[in-house]
């Protein structure tokens, strides 16, 4: 069965979400993944979005493009203010936070602000939005992104969203008492962070990917087991469901 990289990302990310938990999701792949999880193994997963909706059930074929539009609030149990949603995150209610990113470093820090100097950037990116807040407050932070060498860099131009911050207890030293980056899901591999060094390492490979390819697409040194695990391919059911969520392929590309 063939599938695209974005379908693979949504399916792989959905499998990381356990039933009964609360996930803070953005639009695009995160919302696809969270919605798919609810349709498969996690029917009691609660989806929260930063525009101000708790417990939304997005309508297949009518996914929101922004998290603060009506589509994002469909069948929600509460529509709090944006500030209140983030305060619930800071209070510790949200199990998972999903993040993407233009640039990611070995410690899972993310840049979505600027390429080049902050005062006079070479590329002005869209900015944090709620990404920095999700990274600071959610209990398990999952990064979902395409695996490209230009994204996975040793040093960021700017840290928008803190991951492990730096080696050892970098996150704790920065004052972030709670949460941590637990996983990085790409179309080539699943990665986590070595507790000793704080750096990203390969846990498992996506179907068809090999370690040499992963390292070639990573701009920093990436540790891995000699024989990393292999992630199961998306099932026909998962693919059918994720395609039905986004039939116009607004987010699936």
């Amino acid at each position: 069965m063939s599938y695209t990289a974005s379908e693979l990302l949504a399916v792989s990310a959905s499998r990381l979400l356990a039933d009964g938990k609360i996930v803070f999701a953005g639009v695009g792949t995160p919302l696809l993944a969270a919605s798919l999880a609810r349709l498969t193994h996690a029917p009691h997963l609660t989806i929260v979005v930063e525009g101000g909706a708790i417990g939304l059930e997005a309508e297949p074929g009518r996914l929101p493009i922004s998290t603060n539009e009506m589509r994002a609030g469909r069948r929600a149990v509460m529509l709090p203010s944006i500030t209140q949603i983030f305060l619930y995150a800071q209070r510790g209610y949200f199990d998972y936070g999903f993040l993407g990113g233009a640039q990611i470093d070995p410690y899972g820090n993310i840049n979505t602000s600027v390429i080049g100097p902050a005062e006079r950037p070479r590329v002005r990116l869209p900015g944090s939005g709620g990404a920095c807040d999700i990274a600071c407050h959610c209990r398990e932070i999952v990064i979902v992104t395409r695996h490209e060498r230009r994204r996975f860099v040793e040093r960021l131009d700017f840290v928008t969203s803190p991951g492990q911050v730096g080696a050892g207890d970098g996150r704790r030293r920065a004052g972030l008492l709670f949460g941590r980056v637990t996983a990085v899901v790409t179309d080539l591999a699943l990665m986590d962070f070595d507790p000793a060094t704080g750096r990203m390492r390969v846990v498992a490979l996506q179907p068809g990917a090999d370690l040499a390819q992963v390292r070639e697409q990573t701009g920093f040194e990436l540790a891995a087991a000699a024989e990393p695990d292999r992630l199961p391919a998306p099932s026909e059911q998962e693919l059918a469901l994720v395609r039905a969520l986004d039939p116009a392929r607004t987010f699936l590309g």
Partner: protein
Amino acid sequence: MATVTFVEARRRLEAKARPMRDKRMAAADAASLVRDGDHVAIGGCLYSRTPMLLLREVLRHRRRDLVLSRNLMCYEGELFLVSGASRDLVTSWVGIGLPWGLSRIVREFVEGGRARLEEWSHLAIGLRYHAGAMGVPFLPTLSMLGSDLLRTTGARTMTCPFTGEQLCLVPALFPDVALIHVHRADPFGNAQIDGYPHMDLDIAAAAQTVVLSAEEIVDPEQIRRTADRTAIPFFAVDAVVEAPYGAYPHECYGLYEADLDHIDAYARRVAAEGAAAVRAYLDEYVYGPATLEAFLELFGAGRLLRQSRSARELTGRWT
């Protein structure tokens, strides 16, 4: 950075009389409450409940040197940059949405040094308005710790005097003017919002001057019967403008969906032609139509009805 301290903000507020009087006025008159150099906070979020009529009126007044702040800045930021009304945006994110990518206009202005984009985290913006609404100089948070935003914004850190933990402090924001679109208000400015409140309760309480546009002006008795639904009290409000479809082509919860076809056409043209496309848009949709009616005629009744039907379906009001 806000230049108004919490003490000055309180003094300014105390200096104004706040009787429960009729504050209805024409959009053009309400927009004249915005002065050159003002910090203008924009209500709603991205393309939801944006006070588009009021923003068009401010642009028609050809104001200069405005500082615009908003939680997420949609393409209204582009209109203000290209028209020359503003060179200063305060926000957590700028763009329209994932399918449209980066804003070519914001990139050109910021990368070319012609505009400043002051980026805060989304919660930090919310807490800055909230501190303003509370009348205190700052609020503590764990947001932005470990982020370079701590270095590039006016945030500070402190050691908590109770626990010894590190905290990020964000300064209160007291906008000169808040522009907010609501579902209904009485002539005094008691206002109700359906659906997402976004950050509007806080910006209304934090701002020195508040201009409301309302889909519907209702009898004060209706407000009194449904006082539990009131989100903004009259004493925070200076002007009330009747504005059905006042957020269009952005959405208004339960009443009409955003006109994504219109937004998409705008975005495609701007991506291809840059600032020239924004100038053409300003001529056609902002400077051209002198009234709300003339603006809505550019879209036509069929389109407005389609967007309304869609909103009712989505919020379960017709099913």
